[in-house]
């Protein structure tokens, strides 16, 4: 059929086989026996673009998108558990406690609504890049990922799972099934903001998540966790210097100024399509001040 060659427009994808498991067990059995490297397909918003660009050349995809038992948000004791295939849009719809504004904030600016309806938590984690908006939040919530293989489950901190840009510690015979973190207490606030070239449908130039917990009586900072979309090696990370500078202090202008100053010492932004290193370095400090002022204001209202 002559029309077939025009069908895909720009960048027709290379051919691959697709396995359609009906259960986690089927999926795990298949990937454990696969002789060649298989790629896991969840939302497809990152994977299909990279295949089309030629960055990835899979021989086989395993489509996990129909495993509905991996799509949930629930509380279990003091833990919040988010299924790996939860869509970003689900994060926006969920009734989070007041201490957790970050998920609504990230979903509002996550691509457009159609991208948020498709993209998954696990997919964003595996992207392991500065444009993976969930990562700063998961890092400052000190999240853990549950990885499952036929041998069983293991739990790994998200910060340990991110090895380098686009590379994670998920093993070839594993799938991520869940991300979990402790419910932020009412004396805390978790926020997220990203800035970029537009106000919608944009990749982050700089994004930041902060988790601030104040002592109820003294109003001093009990815990401060701050994560940026890129710190060193172009990977989302928490800033230890910023966190150390804030511990035990009151969240006032002096503390915020010192935090911004400490951040400069740790920042090694790279120039890329989302902005120059100079811009991102300056923007990161401003974003930190902006978000800490916001936290001070919101926590002060309580």
């Amino acid at each position, binding site marked *: 059929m002559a029309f*077939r060659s025009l069908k895909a427009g720009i960048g027709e994808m290379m051919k691959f086989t697709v396995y359609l498991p009906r259960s986690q067990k089927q999926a795990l059995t298949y990937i454990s026996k696969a002789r060649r490297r298989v790629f896991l397909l969840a939302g497809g918003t990152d994977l*299909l673009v990279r295949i089309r660009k030629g960055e990835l050349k899979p021989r086989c995809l395993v489509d996990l998108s129909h495993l509905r038992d991996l799509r949930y948000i629930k509380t279990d004791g003091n833990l919040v558990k988010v299924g790996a295939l939860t869509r970003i849009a689900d994060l926006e719809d969920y009734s989070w406690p007041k201490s957790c504004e970050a998920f609504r904030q990230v979903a509002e600016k996550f691509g457009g609504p159609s*991208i948020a309806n498709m993209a998954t938590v696990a997919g964003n984690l595996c992207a392991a890049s500065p444009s993976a908006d969930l990562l700063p939040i998961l890092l400052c919530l000190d999240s853990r990922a549950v990885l499952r293989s036929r041998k069983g489950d293991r739990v790994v901190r998200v910060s340990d799972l991110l090895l380098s840009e686009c590379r994670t510690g998920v093993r070839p015979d594993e799938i991520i099934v869940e991300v979990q973190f402790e419910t932020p207490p009412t004396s805390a606030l978790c926020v997220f903001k990203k800035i970029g070239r537009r106000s919608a449908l944009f990749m982050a130039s700089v994004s930041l998540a902060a988790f601030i917990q104040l002592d109820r009586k003294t109003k001093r900072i009990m815990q401060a966790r701050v994560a940026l979309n890129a710190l060193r090696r172009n990977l989302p990370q928490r800033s230890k210097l910023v966190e150390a500078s804030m511990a035990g202090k009151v969240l006032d202008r002096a503390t915020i100024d010192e935090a911004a100053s400490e951040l400069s010492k740790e920042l090694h932004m790279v120039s890329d399509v989302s902005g120059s290193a100079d811009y991102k370095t300056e923007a990161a400090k401003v974003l930190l001040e902006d978000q800490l002022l916001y936290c001070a204001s919101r926590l002060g209202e309580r």
Partner: protein
Amino acid sequence: MSRYHLVFVVNGRKRSVRVESNQTLLDVLRNDLHMTGVKNGCNAGDCGACAVIVDGRVVNSCLMLALQARGSKIVTIEGIGSLKKLHRLQKAFVKEGAVQCGYCTPAMILTAKNLLDRNPRPRTAEIKRAMSGVLCRCGSYAKIIKAIQVASSGDLA
């Protein structure tokens, strides 16, 4: 290259198509089912012209493998209104002059319908947010927003 058998519901009708693994939903809808109202703007999820509704949620069909739509209910622009009876959004788009070249219009209508189905009286900020995933090269945005406001106001029959 092996072919797969895809069964799904499109605009209320059960369809059965033989597809290749690397065909996207956009590709199958346009080329196998001849629903040419679904447009290929960028093939990268950046423009939203390929928007369709899958199981009640608007998605970019260029970023979905066709096989991922197995068992799903799809709505394309061909399933919205008819020549004899336009959907109120279509009436509003015509009334407000929200169509220039028309390329983004199917995606705009579908995305707006998905918004109104979930939020029947959206504020302007909510409309802008919901529509932020579909680009209009002609710059009809102001009229599109107005059309959605008119459609949601209940003033049109």
